[in-house]
């Protein structure tokens, strides 16, 4: 009897279940990001004339991050320097891909943030109001096969202000770009 695409896909999915059952993978059920670091980066620093404030980092010659692979298939990503640009993020994506970890590098248009991102309003030396973004990073992140690592970058592409890990692709929350507005003056 002739099989269809749906039949052949089912065969592969059944084999995938059997593979997983043979080698149990630790369950990851929650967003791995657990806290917000109160380090601020200017959302529109060029226009606002504000400096980006960074946490103390390692010397410039050190790599921005370390990737450590473990026997159980997990990967530990240790961030040494938050100043990891888009190109370095893409390079990291290539390194993580063989471990079944997908990396999504998002770049926002100038002046936009993702809906729901915490924004703090400050005043520039000229007295203008300017949004500051809270950097949302973990120093050490454990990644499992199937996890999706999402970098959200401002348009300058120099520094992600948010790095989240989602257990699976199905859990990834889309970034809805919005222009931040102060509540009141």
């Amino acid at each position, binding site marked *: 009897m002739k099989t269809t695409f749906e039949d052949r896909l089912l065969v592969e999915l059944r084999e995938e*279940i059997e593979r997983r059952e043979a080698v149990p993978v630790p369950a990851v059920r929650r967003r791995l990001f657990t806290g917000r670091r109160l380090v601020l980066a200017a959302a529109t620093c060029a226009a606002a004339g504000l400096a980006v404030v960074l946490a103390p980092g390692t010397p410039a010659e050190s790599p921005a991050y370390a990737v450590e692979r473990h026997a159980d298939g997990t990967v530990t990503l240790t961030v040494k320097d938050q100043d990891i640009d888009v190109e370095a993020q893409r390079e990291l994506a290539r390194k993580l891909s063989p471990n079944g970890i997908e990396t999504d590098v998002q770049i926002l248009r100038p002046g936009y943030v993702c809906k729901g991102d915490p924004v703090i309003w400050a005043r520039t030396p000229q007295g203008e109001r300017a949004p500051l973004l809270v950097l949302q990073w973990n120093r050490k992140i454990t990644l499992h096969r199937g996890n999706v690592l999402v970098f959200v970058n401002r348009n300058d592409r120099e520094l992600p202000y948010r790095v989240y890990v989602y257990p699976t*692709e199905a*859990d990834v929350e889309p970034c809805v770009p919005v222009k931040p507005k102060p509540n009141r003056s």
Partner: protein
Amino acid sequence: MDGIRGGPRAAARDPQLFEEFYRRHVEAMTSFLARRVADPHTVADLTAEIFLAVLDSADTYRPGRGSETAWLYGIARNVVSSERRRVARETVRDRRISGRRLLEPDDIARLEDKLDAESPGRRALAALERLPAGERAVLELVAVDQLTVAEAAAALDITKVAARVRLHRARKSLREEADPAGVDPRGTSLSYVIEGTGGEA
């Protein structure tokens, strides 16, 4: 009754139960995709992605938050969104199961027929692009994918009341936008969306 015995969690560990789950939903999922993408190869790839995501996230299903169908549509929406982001950035995805590799000429012809059959749905979805994202999401699931309001609410992880409000606003916006003479200059099926047969919880 909507769900299978033991729910998605059991299905993700038992090939026999998974087959039951898969056979129950695969047709609806390929139709869902055929309303959102325009070529059979992408339909095949994303069908594989959806069911792999089911295996990955079966532990996240909570019966109290909605039916198995609603949960699956929530996954399908995320897979399609992720694909659109990927295409927008022209990034390459390392697919664990390549759906298109499993396609044979007969499958492609059959999926192309399905894509043709779903073209009014694709035009209707295109007509919704100007709606706010939250309203559009509810209207898509209810009017185009024929979910109930309760299922759409569960798929989007919002309350039924919020879903009804968004649905009402979306339909109102589209009615106001529709050509009073009944001629749609874009050739879209706005009436199909405004009067969608779904929508009852």
